[in-house]
């Protein structure tokens, strides 16, 4: 129970031990991945063959380290590009949605509100497939009817961006709505009363207030996009984001460079987390994760 209640030592230490074990469970897979990035072997699996930095720096015929693996580096670039767009779209549309759902009444609002949460519980594969199918139908139709090739509706990065956006925006919406709901509207009235125009109120009061939650939603969106696989798999074209590339490599020929890039991802996201925490003084916490 809570610290203010006396608890038997066994309960106290039991809980602490459990939580310790919990975090070990959480981190062991990551730790082994990271450790095997330094394995002096050609495969990302045991046994341990000694220490090497080859998988970061090598550029020989037999070994290509992360820094020289053009394909991998490009995939990171692609992922970042996709994530950037998904982030911008999700935060912008999420903010609009938050205002729509928190500030306006309109017929069918509850349906819209409910529907906007649904993407969270649609399996990613199905989301990907349905968007793929729908997009192909439109593209085929345009092609057949007007001879118009709508390339962005064919598997490729635009569709990947749309697919990821379709559910990540739900998370952004929930996060920003929650913050907007806590917002004291008299602050807006006060600004208005002090002579601000509507636009000025939005710009100087409401958006600055929402900024932390928008930054949090953006971080979340970026990371979720970066790590997405299920939806992306169905929608990729010739440019492979990192996860898809890694999947391909894992099936068709992996080296510990996969571990190296994983370690890079861990360090990058840890840095992002620290940055967010340091800026906001609070752990970034997604709504509905």
């Amino acid at each position, binding site marked *: *129970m*809570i*610290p203010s*209640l006396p608890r038997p030592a066994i*309960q106290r230490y039991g*809980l602490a031990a*459990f*939580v310790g074990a*919990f975090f070990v469970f*959480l*981190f062991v*897979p*990551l*730790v*082994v*991945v990271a450790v095997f990035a330094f394995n002096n072997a050609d495969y990302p*699996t*045991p*046994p341990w063959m000694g220490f090497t930095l080859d998988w970061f720096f090598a550029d020989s015929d037999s070994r290509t380290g992360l820094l020289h693996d053009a394909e991998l580096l490009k995939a990171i670039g692609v992922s970042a590009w996709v994530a950037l767009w998904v982030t911008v779209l999700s935060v912008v*549309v999420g903010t*609009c*949605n938050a*205002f729509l759902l928190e500030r*306006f009444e309109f017929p069918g609002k509850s349906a*819209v509100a*409910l529907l906007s*949460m*649904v993407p*969270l*519980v*649609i*399996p*990613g*594969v*199905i989301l990907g*497939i*349905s*968007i793929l*199918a*729908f997009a192909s139908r439109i593209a085929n139709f345009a092609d057949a009817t007007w001879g118009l090739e709508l390339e962005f509706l064919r598997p490729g990065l635009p569709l990947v961006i749309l*697919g990821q*956006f379709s559910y990540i*925006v739900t998370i952004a919406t929930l996060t920003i709505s929650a913050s907007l709901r806590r917002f004291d509207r008299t602050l807006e009235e006060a600004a208005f009363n002090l002579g601000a125009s*509507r636009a000025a109120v939005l710009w100087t009061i409401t958006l600055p207030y929402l900024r932390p939650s928008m930054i949090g939603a953006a971080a979340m969106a970026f990371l979720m996009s970066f*790590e997405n*696989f*299920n939806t992306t798999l169905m929608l990729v074209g010739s440019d492979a984001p990192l*996860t898809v590339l890694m*999947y391909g490599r894992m099936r068709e020929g992996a080296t510990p460079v996969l571990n190296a890039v*994983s370690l890079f*991802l861990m360090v990058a*996201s840890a840095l992002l987390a620290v940055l967010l*925490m340091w800026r906001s003084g*609070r*752990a*970034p*916490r997604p*709504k*509905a*994760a």
Partner: protein
Amino acid sequence: MDVAAHRRWMLLFLLAPALLWLGGLVVLPHVELALLSLQARVGPGQYAASLDQYRTFVDEPLYWNTFVRTAVMSVLATLFTLLLAFPAAWYIAKVAQGRLKMVMLVLCLLPFWVSEMVRTLGWLILLRETGVVSGLLQATGLANQPVELLYHDATILVGLVYASLLFMVIPLVNSLESLDDSLIEAAYDLGGSTANIVRRIVIPHAAPGIAAGSIVVFMLCLGNYLTPTLLGGKDSLWFTEQIYTQFITRFNWNQGAAFGFLLLFLSSLLVWAGLKLTGQRFGAVMKAS
């Protein structure tokens, strides 16, 4: 401008992106999926309306079994996730203070920011016959020959639980944090035992959080693709895998669409039943997450 007119324009302005998103990326794609599922191939490149795809699902016990198996495993994974996440969430929400709490929250988030692929790679390194755990077991004399820990149903469960923890921990922490400590103290002061307080006070209070976490986790498990395919063995039938197979290796979009639709429908039914059983409402629950 007149205030009411201004609000109407704002409403339209905000409604547009929401409707584009929900219509273009959620509703219509699923309508397309539904339409696809109601067609069957009658000749090369020719399709006609038909219930064949659904008939297949009914006639061929294999698919129905796969679905049941997927659902049962997902329910189990959800339960285990809840059992595992609850004490940890309790510790984070109620026992840990200040910095520690923040750090623990971030530690929970980190593994989920690196991709699912990386985490699965970690499990592969750990659990394979020649992997780290097997090696440790042999080194400590707990096993006298290599142990294959991959390719069992239990392995899938471990993988699923692992992949789901965050999505349970965050809503639980959110809802437990909102539980006033003095309610627990009051119950204790009135003679409540730990078990009774958990049952009468904590669980009823955290119910929306538990439901939210459980729904999201259940749907995530059900929709997972990587974990069952990579960690699961020769018997690891997973429904999303069937969908993927139909779409990708059988080129049978119609069948795949029907499966997708059935997954969506049957899982929604399960979630709905779960909510009814525990007297919760979807909208409220998702807001709590």
